């Protein structure tokens, strides 16, 4: 039975999530050097084009068509049978197509998150093939396992409200693997270059925060109290994490920075994502305050010691934040918030924590392995890294023959 309120809400949420990919483009684009800003914007926008088509042609079927196999079934190829009637096992009150297009936006932003790791040095042709393979061979199966009818992690009772495991852990781990495989940027030995446009970073982070309301509360798939809960805890966790990062910097670096504050807010949004439909507001504050500590340690202490060049901290923020969010869901989940969910460790059900850890480890292992294979394969056929000269001149000119800013008119 279609409910017009639910339908309107989820359609609007899909539009909000769509906005997150261009928002991410500005968030990342502001951090890179100005010779590479168009390269990052282009990578995000081309993913929006590519995965939109991949999704309606076969991605949605491979993820969500009922199947107990590795992938989803093939019954919904080209959206065959995905029409205006609800598919009650996913969402009983909205047209099936509305659910499909809402999920499309998740499939789009997930590979875009990985861009942060290999920014400023990947060849565009190799990138396009890598992303298409990654969306199909990594995202689609994991989405099926966690969310699809017949998916085995869903069957185990793993809780992932809006994509902490499927989106952030899978992309975060892929980010770490690609950063290790592609190697450091030229000139990274000394230190990372300063962000070329911090106002862009803030603009992008602000729009990500805004879009995340669609991401998390839209995942209730209905305009109801659960959506309201997700909205409230999402905003609360982002706020707590942004504040927490600023305080960490104030204490350890002498001054709080806008770059740190918005990075913290994004980490908070990542961490609350799997938990948004299962936890109440006080756990959301705890999740937000603590995620900045973990991510701060990862990007400011661990990364420099280990020396890998995760250029824009895609692993440090999305990987670490996503892992903490998935674990925190196993700690703080409560049936009082969502009777369809489960209780976590702090509500007397230690088994849930075990299930969450299983989902985290399986996702990490699968994403790492497949990312490695896909990267090596594309690298052998097309090549993944630009030449040294192209890297020096920048991706904007070398990969796209355009420049973002003029020096002379």
């Amino acid at each position: 039975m279609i409910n017009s309120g639910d339908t309107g809400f989820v359609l609007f949420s899909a539009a909000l999530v769509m906005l997150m990919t261009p928002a991410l483009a500005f968030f990342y684009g502001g951090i890179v050097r100005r010779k590479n800003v168009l390269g990052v914007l282009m990578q995000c926008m081309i993913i929006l084009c590519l995965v939109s088509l991949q999704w309606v042609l076969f991605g949605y079927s491979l993820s969500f068509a009922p199947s107990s196999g590795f992938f989803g079934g093939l019954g919904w190829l080209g959206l065959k049978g995905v029409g205006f009637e609800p598919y009650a096992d996913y969402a009983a009150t909205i047209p099936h197509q509305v659910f499909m297009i809402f999920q499309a936006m998740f499939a789009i932003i997930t590979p875009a998150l990985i861009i942060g790791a290999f920014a400023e040095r990947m060849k565009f042709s190799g990138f396009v093939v890598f992303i298409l393979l990654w969306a199909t061979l990594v995202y689609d199966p994991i989405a099926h396992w966690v969310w699809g009818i017949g998916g085995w992690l869903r069957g185990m009772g793993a809780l992932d409200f809006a994509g902490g495991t499927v989106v952030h852990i899978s992309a975060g781990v892929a980010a770490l693997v690609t950063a290790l495989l592609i190697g450091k940027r030229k000139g990274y030995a000394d230190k990372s270059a300063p962000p070329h446009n911090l106002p862009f970073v803030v603009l992008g982070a602000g729009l990500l925060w805004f879009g995340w309301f669609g991401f998390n509360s839209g995942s209730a798939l209905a305009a109801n109290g659960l959506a309201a809960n997700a909205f409230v805890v999402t905003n609360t966790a982002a706020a707590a994490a942004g504040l927490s990062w600023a305080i960490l910097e104030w204490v350890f670096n002498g001054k709080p920075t806008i770059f740190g504050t918005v990075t913290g807010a994004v980490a908070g949004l990542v961490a609350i994502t799997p938990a948004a439909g299962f936890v109440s507001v006080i756990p959301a504050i705890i999740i937000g305050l603590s995620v900045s500590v973990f991510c701060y340690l990862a990007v400011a202490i661990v990364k420099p010691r280990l020396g890998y060049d995760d250029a824009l901290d895609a692993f440090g923020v999305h990987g670490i934040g996503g892992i903490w969010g998935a674990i925190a869901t196993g700690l703080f989940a409560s049936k009082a918030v969502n009777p369809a969910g489960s209780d976590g460790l702090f509500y007397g059900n230690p088994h849930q924590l075990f299930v969450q850890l299983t989902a985290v480890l399986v996702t990490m292992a699968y994403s790492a392995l497949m990312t490695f294979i896909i990267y090596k394969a594309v690298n052998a056929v097309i090549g993944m890294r630009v030449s040294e000269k192209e890297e020096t001149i920048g991706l904007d000119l070398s990969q796209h023959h355009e420049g973002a800013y003029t020096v002379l008119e």
Partner: protein
Amino acid sequence: MKLIIAIIQPSKLIDVKNELYKAEVNLVTISEVLGHGRQKGFSEVYRGLKEMGNLLKKIRLEIAVNDNFVEPTINAIIKGAKTGDIGDGKIFVLDLGECIRIRTGERGGKAIG
């Protein structure tokens, strides 16, 4: 007194600065410029229309030094900026007529350091 002007690759600026610090040359003015020598860049295309130009971003350093610092400064710039490829840049050395420190009114060699 000499005025040393160097045009280098933007990506070599960090290396050149480090070499200059090692040579105890701490005073330098830096600006961003466009130019090209024999190195070919990439032409730009905007909505299908090709822009000519081939101008590449370069960094221009200006360093005023006393005579005993001329060779160390030149060597430091070469050490930091050289890759061996076309486009590494050039160094120009000019006689410097006068140098005045605005704060104190000092002139000549004393005002440079």
